[in-house]
């Protein structure tokens, strides 16, 4: 396989006029060959898996009778998608991560913003140390963090349960059906607040310092400085962190997977990602799993686009 020569370059091959005008975007041979390594890797490791997943999502393994003969794998049209969309567990999973996002994202980003702004005040002692401490959970792999928290939530081991019991708050079960989602939110916030804080801190550091001097001369206090000068200029960075948080939330997987080992409330269909995992690996149905994954990707793209659209319209008006 080779790269097709660029038509513009081919057209001018004979004339070689020095004043030949080339379209600004067109590829020349050297340029194309420079892009080739990227194009190949991009196609192999980025496009190919996506295309493969989409193809898989339109296939199905079918066997007749008792299902004990070798199956045939064939085109199934939209069957997989229909099966996913009509499965109440999928809808429940999507609703669950929707609720999760509504609770989790404002708290995560709110905390991150708060920490970033407070740590931006130069009179706070040990700022560097605190920044590292807040960021530390992100340095711990998600699965390890999940296991750590699983012990803190497990009814028989949790010091929190014992503490609450000791002060007469009764027996709190962090893993019961209506509480476990917030237990998961707790883990995710712990894991990601510091990471988002660091992004916002970097953004704060990039703001020109002169304006703060000017503000201070005009009698602006720390709080007003944060609310009226820093936050508005941080808006693009906040938008980005929220966008990442939306994408991350919709792909929720590690934390519920770990908690499912100790809680009856976390099922194999708890989030769409878990559902795809169970279909692929417990049920040996990679085709249905692909359909779930593609739908999840579409939902993620729509949510991201809607969010970006809303924020852009806001900033435009």
């Amino acid at each position, binding site marked *: *396989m080779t*790269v*097709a020569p*660029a038509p513009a370059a081919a057209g001018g091959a004979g004339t070689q006029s020095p004043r030949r005008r080339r379209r*600004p*975007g*067109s*590829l020349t041979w050297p340029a194309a060959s420079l892009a080739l390594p990227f*194009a*190949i890797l*991009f*196609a*192999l490791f980025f*496009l*190919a898996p996506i*295309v*493969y997943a989409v*193809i898989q999502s339109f296939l*199905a*393994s*079918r*066997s*007749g*009778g*008792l*299902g*004990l*003969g*070798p*199956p045939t794998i064939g085109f199934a049209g939209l*069957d997989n998608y229909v*099966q996913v969309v009509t499965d109440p567990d999928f809808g429940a999973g999507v609703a669950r991560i929707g609720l999760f996002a509504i609770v989790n994202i404002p708290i995560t980003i709110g905390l991150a913003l708060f920490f970033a702004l407070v740590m931006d005040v130069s009179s706070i002692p040990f700022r560097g140390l605190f920044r590292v401490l807040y960021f530390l959970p992100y340095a711990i792999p998600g699965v390890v963090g999940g296991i750590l928290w699983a012990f803190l939530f497990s009814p*028989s081991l949790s010091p929190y349960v014992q503490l609450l019991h000791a002060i007469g708050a009764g027996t709190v079960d962090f893993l*019961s*059906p209506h509480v476990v989602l917030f237990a998961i939110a707790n883990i995710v916030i712990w894991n990601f607040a510091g990471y988002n804080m660091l992004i916002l801190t*970097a*953004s704060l550091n*990039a703001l020109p310092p002169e304006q703060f001097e000017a503000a201070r001369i005009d009698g602006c206090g720390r709080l007003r400085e944060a609310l009226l000068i820093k936050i508005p*200029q941080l808006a*693009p*960075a906040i*938008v*980005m962190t929220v966008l990442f948080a939306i994408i991350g939330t919709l792909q929720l997987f590690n934390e519920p997977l770990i908690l499912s080992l*100790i809680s*009856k*409330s976390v*099922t*194999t*269909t708890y989030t769409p990602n878990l559902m795809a995992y*169970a279909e*692929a*690996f*417990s*049920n*040996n*149905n*990679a085709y*249905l799993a692909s359909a779930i994954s593609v739908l999840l990707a579409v939902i993620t793209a729509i949510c991201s686009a809607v969010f970006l659209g809303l924020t852009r319209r806001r900033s435009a008006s």
Partner: protein
Amino acid sequence: MRSSHHAGRTQRPVRSRKRLLAIASTVVALGLALVGCSSGGSPSGGATDEKATITLWDWVDSSKAIALFEKSHPNITVKLDLVTAGAPTYAKMFAAIKAGNAPDVGLVELNTLPQFIGTGGLLDLSKYGANDIKSDFLPWAWNQVSNAGGVYALPLSASPIGYHFNDDLLRQYGITTPPATYDELLQDAIAYHEKNPNGYLVDVPPTANYMALLTWQAGGRLFHADGNKWEVGFTSPQSKQVADYLQQLVDAKAVFTEAAYETPWYQALNSGQLASFVGPQWADALLASQVASQSGKFRVATAPQWTTGKQVDGQEGGGSLAVFKDTKHPQAAYEFVKWMLTDPQAQSLNYQSGYGWPTTKSGAKIPDLDQSVPYFGGQNPQQIYQASNDATDQSWQWGPNYSTVTTDFNDLLAKALSGQTTIWQAFQQEQTKELGRLKAAGIDAVSANE
């Protein structure tokens, strides 16, 4: 930071997107072609005197038997891969079958074997002489691994059941004879929990395996092949009986409801929080290793019955050794499997290593089946298991997708046992779900109640 964030919006040249796409799609096509031709390669017949190395995926340490095999079969080397028990390994096996790099031999439980047969990934052993040794095996065990199409594995182990109880605890709370029926178990469980509010007499694990066992004992059928279609019976009268019975235990809050054979369950047995369970013979090896603190206190009795005075048992687990289709040494692999299951010494070692109850006629005579066991206070529990094996309802069949049933039904049971639904609702929902699953897979199935 801010400027870069806006950069993408200002100008995005519509360059050679088409060309890029063309490049990309060609590369993708190449990639797919590569994926497509990775499988294949026909197995060569090969005599047993050919040098062969075969890989075994197994979660019971069978290294002693393997060493013995290698001594008597110097040309065959067996590489044992100790894998995780059950579901995680099945996931790997399913993927390996697709990728064409499955091991030569694998341990597959009898309940999941039909799903593996349905992938077309298992070797038909009748072509290598399996039917010649058919008469060595108990007939029902043979039925579990074969159908009209062929012999897809050799039955490795049965798993008769018993009532395993911590005699010290039971006596301490006034239970001197183990419950003979499920009614007695219910009354004992409630009385026990009243006297010992921090402890439970028995468990109700939220697992399909347990529901299958109790339904089997009650004479119900979750699956029954009727001609060329399956009758699915999660909502049979027997299942209703099982569900309502267990619901009484759960409503009385008199049972331990975590999954069996997992860490919290072992913890509960070690700490004395859980005093007994109805379970398979292979639990003996697990008790000895995982619940060592209660050694000498446990005893085994006949499992509780649904009908007084009439023993009908089911089984929980039971395994087979299957040869995967992509093996390069089918004859050697079959030779190994056959030896493992029929050699008298191997059968004895298999029992000791915890595979389960022998499925061969000669297996009943191995000395291990008549021994006092220190863990059970010197009791000889094998008589109980042998009686249970004999009393097993042998018409039970496993459906074509038990691994999927486990996923779905375990979820539904987890909801039921955490109080979100009832156990009977879990059975009903599983019936609907399973019929849909089979239909989607193109398998013919009807509700058994119609």
